[in-house]
């Protein structure tokens, strides 16, 4: 926050970095289809007709937001946030609709592929786009009354941070492979992602809602918000843990968890992501129960607004710089 004539204004670097992260997310995989021949196909927004025009339009809106933000900080951030929110919701709706539909009705054709012979899941682009757009939206919303009166400016609540990190790890791992199945007779290999299991579409929805609620709890640090987030997170974490335990237990559970059955699977190998989910979901469930204890809700990390009270380096700028470098690095790596 910078102070000009007694009025606190948010810094501009972090919102710009988050908006760039959202735009970068649109060219990362949104939908991943893994065929039983062991192939993997990724689709992002630019793959569909008119997709590039959508990205260009959003970028244009963000640029207008940046220019306005130089003169009128909050108005500019609001324009940026509305622009990237559109992109964030496009990612969320498309990904969730597809995975939700497929996790309930597996025999659908997508992009000419019979999904009874493949698994479908959300890609990493959805994670980047949704998390960045939600973070930017909360940055805008926290400047407005009455949210401002509930938003801490000199400290961060510890519980939301402690739960957010493993829950994002679960969300990311849900979209990656848990199991690798092979059949020597049919010469096929199936990669089973966490969100490719029956009914997991609804669990993924719950996971994302939990992520959003904990970002909200960071901004509106009140027991009511924390308790609602704890309740939902506990429910979701227990269901995810059950999924992971069933897959880990393997054996007969695979017969009804894996939607498409080709031949008898002869080799079953578990991927590290499955164990990440097992440990993280257990930890999150435990922390969600502890989150109902008022003493634990009050734990906080005191920061202030600047790295050193005498320096001109703001925490917001440091975080914005890190996000900016990561976005540029991923873009360069993609080009190389």
């Amino acid at each position, binding site marked *: 926050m910078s102070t000009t004539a007694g009025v606190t204004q948010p810094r501009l670097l972090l919102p710009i970095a988050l908006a760039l992260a959202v735009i970068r997310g649109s060219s990362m995989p949104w939908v991943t289809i893994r065929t039983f021949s062991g192939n993997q196909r990724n689709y992002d927004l630019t793959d569909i007709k008119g997709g590039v025009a959508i990205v260009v339009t959003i970028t244009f809106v963000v640029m207008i937001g940046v220019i306005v933000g130089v003169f009128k900080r909050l108005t500019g951030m609001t324009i940026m946030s*509305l622009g990237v929110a559109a992109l964030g919701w496009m990612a969320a709706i498309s990904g969730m609709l597809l995975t939700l539909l497929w996790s309930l009705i597996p025999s659908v054709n997508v992009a000419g592929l019979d999904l009874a012979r493949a698994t479908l899941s959300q890609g990493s682009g959805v994670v980047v786009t949704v998390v960045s757009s939600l973070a930017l939206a909360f940055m805008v919303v926290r400047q*407005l009354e009455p949210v401002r009166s509930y938003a801490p400016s000199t400290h961060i609540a510890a519980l939301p941070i402690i739960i957010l990190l493993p829950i994002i790890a679960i969300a990311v791992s849900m979209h990656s492979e848990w199991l690798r199945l092979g059949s020597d007779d049919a010469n096929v290999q199936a990669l089973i992602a966490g969100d490719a299991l029956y009914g997991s579409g609804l669990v993924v929805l719950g996971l994302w809602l939990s992520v959003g609620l904990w970002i909200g709890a960071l901004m509106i640090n009140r027991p009511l918000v924390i308790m609602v987030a704890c309740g939902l997170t506990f429910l979701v974490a227990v269901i995810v843990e059950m999924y992971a335990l069933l897959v880990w237990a393997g054996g007969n559970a695979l017969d009804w968890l894996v939607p498409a059955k080709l031949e008898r699977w002869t080799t079953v190998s578990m991927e590290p992501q499955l164990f990440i989910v097992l440990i993280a979901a257990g930890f999150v469930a435990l922390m969600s129960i502890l989150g109902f204890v008022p003493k634990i809700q009050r734990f906080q990390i005191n920061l202030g607004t600047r790295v050193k009270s005498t320096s001109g380096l703001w925490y917001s700028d440091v975080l914005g710089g890190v996000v900016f470098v990561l976005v540029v690095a991923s873009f360069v790596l993609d080009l190389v």
Partner: protein
Amino acid sequence: MAGLLTYIAIFAMTSIWILGWMGLSVVIGSFFDLPLKTVSLVGATLGPLGFMVTIMLGILESRKEEFYETETVKAKVDDDPFGDLFK
């Protein structure tokens, strides 16, 4: 042509989603007497999450108001200003 139609369809779908959640948040926000500007932006940018945030904000704000609740005391009004003179 297909690209243009997809462009319009996707933006229309996203606009309906954003405006829909904004509308729902405004309805809930007005129920709790929350500022319209805040509630509109919360609903538009945060979608279903904004709807939940609005409900929680409303509950928090209405709890705050409980401390300032006024009590109406029935005041004794003498309808006959000269009544005392004739007692």
